[in-house]
């Protein structure tokens, strides 16, 4: 019962946040909406017994990624109102069609193969603690993990290179 209430509540929050993200004209409002969505998804993770993933979601996504977004929004120009108007009127209609079509197609695709399973939410069928995840991650999935390590390193290096890449030589920048 508790899960149902929590689910309905936070699913609503997620949907509202998502819709406000794509409809707000103020970019900061969009970011706020996304933040709300991310928080609610974290809570839904908890409902699903994925405690570690929920914690990581809050720390990484809601904490780091969204902060980064907000920094850049401030830098790029928060005071410019960005109309979400499409260039062609047909574009809004087409977008709605495509989005609804996508949703419908996924629902349709899944109707026959939705996993039929138990709904018992009482006893955790799954151990989502950090320990269990770590066992799996550093056990079977060691190589992909190391690959992501490399990926992050390269991404960081690339970002710094992009930041410093100018037409003017480096000495002027440091001054």
């Amino acid at each position, binding site marked *: 019962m508790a899960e149902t209430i929590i689910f309905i509540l936070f699913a609503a929050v997620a949907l509202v946040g998502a819709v406000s993200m794509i409809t707000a004209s103020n970019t900061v409002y969009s970011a706020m909406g996304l933040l709300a969505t991310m928080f609610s998804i974290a809570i839904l993770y908890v409902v699903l017994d994925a405690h570690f993933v929920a914690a990581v979601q809050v720390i990484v996504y809601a904490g780091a990624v969204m902060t980064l977004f907000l920094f*850049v929004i401030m830098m790029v120009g928060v005071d410019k109102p960005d109309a979400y108007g499409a260039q062609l009127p047909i574009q809004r209609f087409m977008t709605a069609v495509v989005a609804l079509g996508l949703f419908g197609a996924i629902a349709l695709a899944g109707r026959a193969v939705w996993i039929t399973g138990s*709904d018992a939410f009482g006893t955790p069928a799954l151990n989502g603690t950090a320990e269990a995840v770590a066992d799996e*991650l550093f056990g079977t999935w060691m190589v992909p993990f190391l690959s992501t390590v490399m990926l992050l390193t390269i991404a960081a290096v690339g970002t710094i290179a992009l930041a410093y890449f100018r037409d003017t030589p480096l000495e002027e920048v440091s001054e």
Partner: protein
Amino acid sequence: MTVTVTWFLLLAAALFSIGVAGVLIRRNALVMFMSIELMLNAVNLTFVAVSHELGLIEGQVAALFVMVVAAAEVTVGLAIIVAVFRTRSTANVDELAEMSG
């Protein structure tokens, strides 16, 4: 009215579609990027939901990996947007249409 896994999956599908709509309909590069993040989150939700259903931990591991990659992507992508903004002083993707045939 117990919550079944289907609800989670449908919610994820809805969030994904909203993300697609956001990509198609907004002109600001940043908002487009955020829509992509929304799509990634929806996929993560799907992974975790199914992992809960099947009793496998791999789903959560996959979700972790997606998160890592998304974080890296955001880093680089935002750096690019900043760099582009420096030279063009615009974040409007419609105006950044140089790679045309």
